[in-house]
């Protein structure tokens, strides 16, 4: 994987979008700087996944626009978009017949000629990607037969194989146990640091967010409340504003720890 030299700027301006009558993004404006790991955090339903979907043009915008390198996204065709942005959805569906190798080869879809296939360079990339996620031995396995952790790494491998400079991830470590969570996030950090990719990821766990992300964006009811480094954004005041929860935030061994107090929420039946 070559070092990325382009200057990438992804920017949303006054974006409003929703499903029918339900509005999920309200007048949202945000800028994503290149070469950083940005985490989107916030309560359920605040629009984190929807923002990613809007960037991928899965969710049509009713107002505002999103620009990549200054060009509005609508003007960029699907193929060109696929060469710049890769997307890892929350729920990945794979047909039963598909092997890991086939999945990886699909990643280069936007690069292949009309009646062509993976080039030698592509094939080198694929074997390297498989080595990075540690699944080289499993290349011939059907994806659905892999274990949960392996499957998640398989999808991450596919996203890497797409060889783009921007990667969007929607809750990539949700179903993984704690070792895998760290392993995957370390992998993502490796993408950003030496390789200079831009990663935007929705993460639920505030501690992981603060530990791994360069920038944390807290979202609330369809708009961005605040953004900044981990230490700046994850503060007790912000947590209370966004989640309605009192929490303590302190440092331990140089890492930020977010410690919510027991909620006094009475669950209304």
């Amino acid at each position, binding site marked *: 994987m070559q070092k990325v030299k382009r200057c990438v700027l992804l920017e949303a301006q006054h974006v409003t979008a929703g*499903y*029918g009558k339900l509005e999920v993004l309200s007048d949202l404006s945000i800028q994503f700087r290149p070469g950083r790991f940005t985490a989107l955090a916030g309560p359920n339903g605040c629009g984190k996944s929807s923002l990613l979907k809007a960037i991928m043009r899965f969710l049509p915008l009713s107002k505002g626009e999103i620009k990549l390198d200054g060009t509005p996204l609508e003007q960029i065709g699907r193929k060109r978009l696929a060469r710049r942005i890769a997307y890892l959805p929350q729920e990945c569906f794979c047909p039963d017949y598909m092997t890991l190798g086939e999945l990886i080869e699909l990643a280069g879809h936007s690069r292949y000629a009309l009646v062509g296939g993976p080039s030698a360079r592509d094939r080198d990339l694929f074997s390297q990607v498989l080595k990075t996620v540690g699944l080289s031995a499993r290349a011939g396995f059907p994806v659905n037969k892999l274990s949960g952790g392996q499957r998640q790494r398989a999808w991450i491998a596919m996203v890497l194989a797409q060889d783009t400079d921007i990667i969007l991830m929607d809750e990539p470590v949700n179903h993984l146990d704690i070792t895998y969570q760290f392993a995957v996030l370390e992998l993502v950090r490796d993408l950003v640091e030496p390789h200079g990719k831009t990663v935007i990821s929705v993460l639920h766990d505030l501690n992981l967010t603060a530990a791994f992300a360069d920038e944390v964006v807290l979202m609330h009811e369809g708009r961005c409340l605040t953004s900044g480094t981990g230490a700046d954004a994850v503060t007790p005041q912000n947590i209370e504003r966004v989640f309605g929860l009192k929490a303590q935030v302190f440092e331990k061994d140089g890492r930020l720890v977010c410690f919510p107090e027991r909620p006094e929420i009475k669950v209304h039946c």
Partner: protein
Amino acid sequence: MQRRPVFLSTMAFLLPVMAGVHLFLGFSPTDLPQLLFALPGSDAQSFEEAVLLYQRVPRTLIALYVGGVTAVCGFVLQSLVRNPLASPTTLGVNAGAALFLVAGVLLFNLDTALQGAAALAGALSGFLASLAVAKAAGRQNDPRGLSLILSGALVAMFFTGLTNALLLSDPARRSDLLSWIVGTINHAYADRLALFWWVGAIAICVLLVLARPLTLILFGAEKAASTGVNVPIVSGLAILAAVLGAGSAVAICGPIGFVGLVVPHIVRPLVGNNLRIALPAAFLTGAMVCILADLVGREALRPFSLSTGLVTDLVGGVVFVLIIKRFYLSPGAQQEAA
């Protein structure tokens, strides 16, 4: 749920009115009192009375039976399959019954009584074939039983093709059966009604008896089992009753589509899912819809008359589209799928 008694009594009131219109529309008003008195008897003193007794009354009775039974069976099928598109038409029941009956007539020269048996066997086979295809196509991530609908449609298409091929092989008898196969309510089928009405009656009785355990199953199979309901037996018996009941309707006047699909959707929002009340409501509404369809077919395009089955297919198809739109294409449903 105060709508329930209102709805039921409205239906119970409207049905005889509709039946009356169906019986008496077309006669001159001066004849009416005399005709009314002629009803209980079976001797016709005049041409009008003959028309009434030998044509209209059988038609009304057939329409009542077929509409009511098909609607009840459709309601049960929709509840058990847990899919708003389930019905005797869409699950291959009607097509199977039609195929077996036609095969019985053309290949084995069965008499009317045995034809009915053939239709019942066919109804069951059609349903089982749909189940088999759905299972074989093996869709694991299929939460709403949709593959059953698809396989039912495939099986129905396939059986209909076979039926058409069979009809072609015997051009002489083809024209007789042709009008039956689109679903025609004809007084000539009164003898069939007399032979098969008890099948539907038994089916409905069985379903009414099973109404309470069935309602429990609807709200959750595990919960029902924990209250002592034998889920597999009750479900199996109910499906058997529904399929055979629908088959008996086909045996009488051919496959009348969509009544079993549409009526449950009319009834359910007004009456709820409690089968003990919903089933009679479905019967009344189905009977009314069928009588209405027959009336429209008879009177709307005078002097031509359109088969009831064609009317229900055309109108029912449009309603089918609306049901799909509401359940599968509304933004809420799309977000579920997304």
